[in-house]
């Protein structure tokens, strides 16, 4: 490898690190909202640890691209209707805003696209985190899993 090539490689790596651990990402991370209430504000929490963000990226990468759906996976019904993740920290490798529900991931906004969430693994992970961060209690977490994830 030439000197220039080595420098380019190091510089690219540095850029990637800055993009990954940039100030915005560290401060804001991913805002996760459990869509369940109508009147009260929904339970929300933030994922910002590197391991959590890595996990989220892994779930997204595992998803298989689906034919874009005409209707959103988030239906306007009462009760639990999915999870919306907002990429507040502009974390690389993740869409700006996406929904996770019933085995699907929907990239929201203009660049709309649909992916699979095999075994509802991402959704389960996000609900488990909601419980771990104490925005919903164990009973609610179990209730949602019992009702929705057989």
């Amino acid at each position, binding site marked *: 490898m030439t000197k220039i090539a080595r420098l380019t490689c190091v510089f690219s790596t540095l850029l990637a690190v800055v993009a990954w651990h940039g100030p915005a990402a560290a401060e804001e991370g991913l805002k996760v909202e459990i869509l*369940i209430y*109508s*009147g009260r504000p929904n339970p929300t929490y933030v994922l910002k640890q590197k391991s959590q963000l890595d996990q989220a990226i892994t779930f997204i990468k595992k998803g298989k691209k689906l034919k874009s759906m005409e209707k959103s996976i988030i239906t306007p019904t*009462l009760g*639990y209707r999915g999870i919306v993740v907002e990429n507040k920290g502009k974390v690389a490798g993740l869409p700006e805003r996406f929904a996770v529900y019933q085995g699907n991931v929907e990239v929201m906004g203009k660049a709309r696209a649909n992916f699979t969430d095999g075994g509802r693994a991402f959704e389960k992970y996000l609900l488990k985190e909601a419980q771990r961060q104490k925005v919903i209690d164990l009973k*609610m977490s179990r209730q949602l899993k019992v009702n929705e994830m057989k």
Partner: protein
Amino acid sequence: MKQRAAFVFLFLLFLSTRAFSAPLNVVNVSAPSINCVFDTSCKIVVSDTTAPIPIVAGGANFLQSRTYTGNPGSPANGLYGYEYRIDLRNAVATAPACVRSLTLKFGSVVSSLDYNGNGVTGDQVFVITGGGIGSIGLNSAVQDTNGDITFTFNSPVCPGSASGSGQSTYFFGLVSAQPPAPVTASVTEVSGAVLNVAARAPQPGPACSIPPYSPAYWNDAGTVQLNNNCYNYGNNKRTDTFAQPGRAAGAMYALPITCNGAYNAAVADGLVPLTASGACPGGRDKVALVVAPCVAPGCAAPFYNGNDFHWYRLGSDLMWTHKPGGSQATNLDNSFNLIANPETANRCGSGLCYSDFCGYLCSCSDVQQGQGHENIN
């Protein structure tokens, strides 16, 4: 089961009596401490007008209308105080010509203030029984669905047999968000005779009208949709604050949410109670409240999981529509059926069920989407 049915019946009966006339919460206060509600230094500048009451009596008598504004920093900042007094002290009558009540069109009464300083808001009418003129207070103050308030005195107000020996009421007052305008009040004598008298009362509020179902305004997948919930949609008012019943009036519901708690909070915001079969007067829109009750042991502090409220609104096509939280506005229930009756609509979803039907209210809405006139936040 029978007990529950009896409770529901009694609750609906309670609502039905409130729909036609609602008693206002009257408290006794003293001057000048009442002024502290309107000014941080407890000094107010008043505007007084008087008009003669055409009772059959000699001498002078009058209805006094007194208005003033709530000053910055005070609890009533930006609001308008209204006080009234019937003075027959110098009226002279040989035959009985006593006054029983006063009725005037007032409109929406501010219910978020604490006039008697007991630490509890929700006072609606105050009577200055200490430190002021008069000797006769109020037996009741009752408002009908047209906004007319009848103040009934706790004893007849009578002229005297000589000048200076007649009676006067205390000043009694209330507060509105609307500035004053001339009105014609009605004074009712004990005999039943009704006499018209010039007075001042709040200007009429904005015209109410019923909105069509037009979901595109709400379903923008952005600011409007995500920041306006069922209470915003029900009142057809965009605030971008995920409005909560009672928050604008300083009388928000407490957790866990109950039918009574959410219903009363909406009334504090200015919505008017209505029976199931009732039609809203004055072009107001009929809205319905439901609650997903807090059911132990799953629902407990601090999360109160599964406990929530939800609103439906009646459209100009006489069908009901709603907006579940930050989701899209829709005309379908949870079974994806059109909603002809919110009481029988499917209101149960995964994780929670809005099984308690709380009743109906009237909201001052507008044909333009997002432009309702209720004071919610």
